[in-house]
């Protein structure tokens, strides 16, 4: 299965959920989707298409929060970024940890550092700063002027 075919299939399955597709080259593709469809998209990639979950990167911009979920198709060296925009005041998204354990730690870490809430996470405790940092204080958050 090559990158073009993967993108075609993805479009067929999630046409209404896709906001933008950026193809940098055949090994780096970013697809921006609606946050509500993350469970379906991750399930499709992990179970149907055989992608491996690498990690997720959260970041904050003036507009709000973003998460890049990085998936890898190792047979063709493709890294597929599933990109979501989250609400500025109440950032939350469905957890993927009930589907695969690989996202368990990183979701806890993002929750701890950015204050993004992962709904239905099996154990959303602090990962890094247990017992050390104040509640409700998120070290990686920025204040924009």
């Amino acid at each position, binding site marked *: 299965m090559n990158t073009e075919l993967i993108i075609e299939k993805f479009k067929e399955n999630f046409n209404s959920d896709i906001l933008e597709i950026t193809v940098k080259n055949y*090994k780096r593709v970013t697809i921006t989707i609606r946050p509500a469809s993350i469970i379906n998209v991750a399930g499709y990639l992990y179970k149907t298409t055989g992608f491996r979950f*690498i990690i997720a990167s959260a*970041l904050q911009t003036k507009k709000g929060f973003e998460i890049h979920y990085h998936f890898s198709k190792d047979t063709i060296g493709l890294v597929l970024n599933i990109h979501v925009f989250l609400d500025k005041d109440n950032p939350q998204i469905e957890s993927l940890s009930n589907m*695969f354990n690989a996202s368990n730690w990183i979701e806890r870490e993002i929750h701890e550092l950015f204050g993004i809430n992962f709904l239905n996470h099996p154990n959303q405790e602090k990962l*890094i*700063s247990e017992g050390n940092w104040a509640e409700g204080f998120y070290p990686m958050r920025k204040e924009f002027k």
Partner: protein
Amino acid sequence: MSKKTLIPIGPYHPLQEEPELFKLYCDGEIVKDIKWETGYNHRGIEKLSESKTYEQIFFLVERICGICSTSHPFAFANAVEEIAGIEVTDRTKYIRSIIGELERIHSHLLWVGLAGHFLGYNTVFMWAWKYREPVLDLFEMISGNRNSYAMFKVGGVRRDIEMAKIPVIQKVLDDLKKKADMLTGAVMDDPVIHARIRGVGILTKQDIIDYGAVGPTARASGVAIDVRKDDPYAAYPLVNWKVITAQAGDVFAKAEVRLLEIHESISIIEQCLDGLKKEKEGDIAVKVKEIPEGIGIGRAEAPRGEVFHFVKSDGSNSPVRHKIRAPSYVNIATFKKSCIGQTIADATISLAAVDPCYCCTERMAVAYDLNSGDKIMNANELINVSVRKTNEIRKEIKSQL
């Protein structure tokens, strides 16, 4: 409710890449549950990175891990060069791969030594670390440092490997080849080691996929993922080599994969040295003007598995977000599968099998009985449990012979 004993492993060693505390909850000798605490030495490198320039970040990420100190700069260089669309010279590619593979050799030898130590094979420990020494000397010759080599920069490397140095490297590799052969034979053919680590700490293919484990941990369970092959970078597509896999998923399979990878690495370096001879000396960097806006993903295969760097640039001289994932981050989580249900003696080597920079065990905290608060075990005693088991097996096998 049955009484459980808590055995903490860890947490703290300032030289260790991931200072962590593992809590083994044991019922008698059997490990019933495992929990961990991280963040004892959280250095905020991702945040720090946002305040450094691209040139400075190489020195910062090099300090994430002391043992595989070149894999992070490697992945970061890949990420930044992807943003800027930089194509490095062939000479740079060869030098980068040589450094990466020398590092793999010394890291795997270090692991073999430590694993031997935990099993009560101190001869293996002495051998492996002795053979590792000339590799570190090579690093000193090439870069000036035995560790944290500071070789990488955007668009190239900082130091060349001159013609005169090639025979010296070749000599060390020739010596190492014989020694690696001997070490591989000694470990793989030893009946006691077979009895001790075969069938211990098994991870199935499904466990690997579920936890997203990478590197030798994944390859020992038959999941043939290796960034050098899947998403080739540097000189890896220019040389012939194969991905080493094993099927069993136990500690023995992990040892087998690492030992055989040492041989592959030697072969890769030799081919890179041949490539180097054909390239013009001094052609080690390209001019970089500026890093444009965009996102870049850099991957590199560290000795422990895939290192992943995500860099978002806004066109200034430092990134706005730099996410780093080291391989142990996903590999350590597999302990939930590999350790539960085993004896404490086996847990020591199962934990070590993932190669989580295990120097922490040396400084293990004292354990307390959960109910009485009595002191139970310290670091050496835990290793002794493992050594005792090996000795018992040794006796058993001798009596059978």
